[in-house]
């Protein structure tokens, strides 16, 4: 697990957690939390990321278990590095459930 991950310019990261009420995965973004990982804020500075993580921990009435994890800059926003995070950003591979359905809806808009 990557809870002790420290971001840098070479290895940026995002802050992710679960929504307290619903349970689904969310990412910290400008102005709050989003279920769209592509909108996540990419942290490249350790101090700024640590401060943001402290803020996230303080929002325990909104999210559960926030942590920093490595991500890379992609054409449509941050992308996962580890396959675990890739599954969290997509959903299970045995059914078309989870975040992948939101992505599908978004592309159909």
């Amino acid at each position, binding site marked *: 697990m990557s809870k002790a991950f420290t971001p840098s310019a070479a290895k940026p990261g995002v802050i992710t957690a679960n929504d307290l009420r619903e*349970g689904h995965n969310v990412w910290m973004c400008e102005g709050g939390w989003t279920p769209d990982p592509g909108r996540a804020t990419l942290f490249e500075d350790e101090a700024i990321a640590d401060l943001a993580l402290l803020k996230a921990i303080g929002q*325990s*009435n909104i999210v559960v278990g926030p942590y920093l994890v490595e991500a890379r800059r992609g054409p449509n926003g941050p992308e996962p590095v580890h*396959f*675990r995070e890739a599954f969290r950003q997509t959903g299970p591979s*045995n059914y078309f459930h989870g*975040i992948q359905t939101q992505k599908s809806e978004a592309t159909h808009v």
Partner: protein
Amino acid sequence: MFDVRPVDTDYVRHRAAQFRAQVARRLDGSLTEDEFRPLRLMNGVYLQLHAYMLRVAIPYGTISPDQMRMLAHLAQHYDKGYGHWTTRQNIQFNWPRLVDIPDMLDLLASVGMHAIQTSGNTIRNVTTDAFAGAAADEFADPRPYAELLRSWSTDHAEFQFLPRKFKIAITGAARDRALVAAHDIGLRLIRHEGRTGFEVWVGGGLGRTPMLGQVIRDFLPEEDLLPYIEAIIETYNLSGRRDNKYKARIKITVSERGLDAFRADTEEEFLRRRGHFHGADRDALAQFRDRFAAPEFRKAPVAGYEAERQANPAFRSWTDTNLHPHRVDGYASVIVTFKAPGATPGDASADQMRLLADLAEKYGHSDLRIIHDQNVALPHVHKSDLPALYLALRGAGLATANAGLTSDIIACPGMDYCTLATARSIPIAQEIAEHFRAQGLEEEIGKLNIRISGCINACGHHHLGHIGILGLDRAGVENYQITLGGDGYDIPAIGQRAGAGFPAEDVVPAIDRLLRAYLDLREDASERFIDAYRRLGPAPFKAALYPEVVNA
């Protein structure tokens, strides 16, 4: 008549109301997550990879049609239309919202069900033979004892904060289908000098340190069951390690202290405890025996069943694989596998659950069992009803003739759902099942237990698979270790690692090489994979898995 009586309804409703208030306090900020987590875990609520997960207890896998319909209702209205049978004979819902779980628990309470002690360091669901009360090789029905253990252990104040979780299994048959040797406590019903009692096993378990249990008591008279079990757990509660989560299970306690020292403490404590039991447990057991009285079996000709077997090869194939011998002439136990090609092992849709409830009422004396291998049994079906039952199951995709075969794979949810997982299990199971179906080899290979776990916690019982597959994270890539020679049933054994792991795309070709080698090596079709492995040892099978090493 079989009677699944709603259990302790007032208590279950009380606990559901308590949890509703706890959720409310969590949502309004009165409870932190650190304070709330143990409370939700005591009610079977986990936070998984994509969502919350609710694990509902199905005591010793026994469930009534009405209870099954309630599970279907929850699957349809609070989940995504399905539930997942677990290897502790329970069910898990993968997508509930926290805000809905209090309503789900209320609905469960209305049919005497709950999620209490499906998590946490307590005594978990007591498991047993899914064919209890039905099997031809059964010596004594284990369910009354399982119910005694369930009612005794539920909310047992002394055992709510054990060093680690605690699992008990009980069997009353010649063949151990309850995996007694792989449990913290395993109980085998036996007779000794005219008396009924138990051979008591202790210290078995899988996980990161797999061990088979040892016999701590050759014969325990049945009336001493609860005081002796209390003595074992009390000894563990006091001497089990709390300094290291990975060394906290009783198997480590017994292993580190030695069986003799552990037994001495247990026996001493047993003498002390036995005096506190004044017969209420034996009275309860007598009541439970009445509740598990056999249904009124009927006598009817089975000529129609035999004729259908001759006329319909698909039906014959299904009856060859998916029936278990019943103790009453004219009856069979039916195994409904949830392992159709391409299906997720153990997933049941709401419609399938409702159908099973209807079929159990129509053909199965209203009795349903969840099997630890993630299938469902109708334990009592008259053979004359099998053609109609088969047709009904086939219409719902539930008549796959594969019980005990290659595609009847146990697989944990793996990294598709589980936050502890290090790799996926489900796609590997699906690929293996589809491959051997497509190759037409499944029938030729015959009986084979493949077990897949997505991490070393071993929820998929990979150590007990004739072929075990363990998914790991190797430098950020899914990688699968193969173990050989495990067995949970006939000659309990922990599978041994065959060698280096395989990338995901190489697992099916490796298993293909392994099983084709087995087909070449076996003496005849009656020699199962595990028998050939025991006869020949691992070398020829390793050679098939790693041909490049041999050819190098």
